[in-house]
């Protein structure tokens, strides 16, 4: 251990102050919204969310706002839809990316650079109006208005393949050669060597996809045109402001209901997640 030095502990203290200030910037909207969501709004003459600093520290606490939002919107149905769509998308993305990244990282074959370049180009292409054509395509193949219709167009992404490719590249090729000499097929190599060693990247990609899918509303609302029973929570949440435009407390409660599941997953897996994403640019 290093010797005690006043300058060092001063530095450390300053670091913690800086870290905390940045932390406050990052989470204060979340904390405030949480405070609003548990505020009892039924007290006389009305509570204003802009009554500072009182609105940051609610005096009377209640879970009624949550119950009201949950029952008015019948959220259970949407929660289940969200779970199904999100898990299908995560699994699909992981399989497609883990497979496609292997040849791009470890095999020499004609056309490799062109394919990789084309995939990266999708990051620049004008994709904002793609959804219109995609809806037409889904309609033609009969998937419009189904869970698969939401999932399939989103699982092959340049980002996913890129993250996995970077993870594979850092695995020493000598391991692969050894396995080949032992007679392993390429599929066996992926399954037994690459995937176990790329676990942090897979986790990171999984969580990244999970968060994005859970939060995205635009594509889901289009691909589920005419199938309102299948719509995810994010789409239902859009109706929140329409229904409760006069009731910020319920809006806040709805926001929390939407946010808490991802928050739990993220906190639970955050160590692996950070490691995996860091690997992407190492």
């Amino acid at each position, binding site marked *: 251990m290093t010797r005690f030095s006043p300058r060092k502990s001063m530095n450390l203290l300053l670091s913690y102050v800086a870290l905390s200030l940045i932390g406050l910037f990052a989470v204060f*909207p979340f904390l405030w919204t949480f405070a609003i969501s548990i505020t009892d709004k039924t007290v006389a003459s009305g509570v204003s969310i802009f009554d500072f600093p009182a609105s940051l520290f609610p005096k009377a606490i209640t879970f009624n706002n949550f119950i009201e939002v949950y029952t008015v919107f019948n959220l259970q149905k949407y929660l289940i839809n969200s779970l199904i769509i999100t898990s299908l998308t995560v699994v699909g993305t992981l399989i497609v990316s883990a497979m496609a990244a292997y*040849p791009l990282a470890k095999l*020499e074959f004609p056309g490799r650079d062109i394919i990789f370049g084309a995939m990266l180009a999708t990051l620049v292409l004008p994709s904002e109006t793609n959804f*219109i*054509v995609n809806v037409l395509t889904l309609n033609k193949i009969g998937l419009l208005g189904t869970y698969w219709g939401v999932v*399939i167009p989103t699982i092959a992404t340049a980002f996913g393949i890129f993250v996995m490719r970077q993870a594979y590249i850092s695995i020493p090729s000598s391991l692969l050669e050894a396995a080949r000499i032992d007679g392993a097929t390429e599929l066996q190599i992926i399954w037994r060597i690459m995937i176990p060693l790329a676990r942090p990247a897979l986790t990171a990609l999984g969580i990244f996809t999970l968060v994005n899918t859970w939060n995205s509303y635009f594509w889901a609302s289009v691909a589920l045109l005419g199938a309102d029973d299948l719509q995810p929570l994010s789409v239902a949440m859009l109706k929140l402001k329409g229904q409760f435009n006069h009731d910020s407390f319920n809006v806040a409660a709805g926001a929390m209901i939407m946010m808490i599941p*991802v928050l739990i997953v993220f906190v639970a897996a955050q160590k692996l997640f950070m490691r995996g994403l860091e690997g992407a640019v*190492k």
Partner: protein
Amino acid sequence: MRKSSLTITAYMLLLPALLLMAVFTFYPVLYGSYLGFTKYTAANLGSNTPPSWIGLENFRTVLSDELFRIGLINSLKYLIIVPILQLASLGVAVLVNRQIPGIAIFRAAYYIPVITSITLASVMWEWVFTRDGLLNWVLEVFRIIDPKSSFGWLLNPNTALWAIMLVTFWRGFGYYMVLYLGGLQSIPSELEEAALLDGASTWQRFWKITVPLMRPTILLCSLLSSLAAIRVLEEIIVFTNGGPLNSTYTVLMYVYQKSFGLDFDYGVASAAGLLLAIVGFILSYINFRVTREDAPTRGAKV
């Protein structure tokens, strides 16, 4: 293993990804680009007639439309966020790239804005920016502004775009921090220690060692961030819809408004989208050139 069978294996593994991308990414881009050269509006839908080729007509319409010009300027203005966001993220990454107690909590906290959906972020930040909101309260408490002269940040044409940029910054710095952390960990610690022995200050070490060594990662992140910046849309829709006085009206807002509604003009929307893509290509090209020249010192295997 024979070379041809290796090639077959490679393509088999790539097949699902390539097929999906061909159908759901490349085909729509090509078809959408084609529509940019056609007349395709709501009236086509009403009379059930297919798009008809009109050459460069839509591009002329777009380029002579003042709204498009306003949008382009605002989209380019949005690029200002890029250097600020990147330097701040790198700084934060340096700050959390240490083994001190509790650091994991801070890293996780910084990532929370990234996992907040834009719809929820809009709810939270609207309450911050409104005239009676949190931001003005803080400024009034610290006597920075007079309550009488306070204003809603999203309502003032001089501040609205900046307010939205702040939200982009808030949602982005945790994301880029994580990417930079990866790069930082590949910097040999001997370099840092040597500089410390030379008596370099934290500030000097950041500019003289960290920034130059991290250049490849910085360039990659800047590219991603620039492309996102000129294509900003969701934030605009949820906060201001382009107002006040079109001060937050971006190119994609133009594309969006032209492609929706029962008055849609999809040909014009596609043409505007194509023009924006060209700007994106130019930015990427510049970035690519700079990265190339930098090749000898590259640390990121991109």
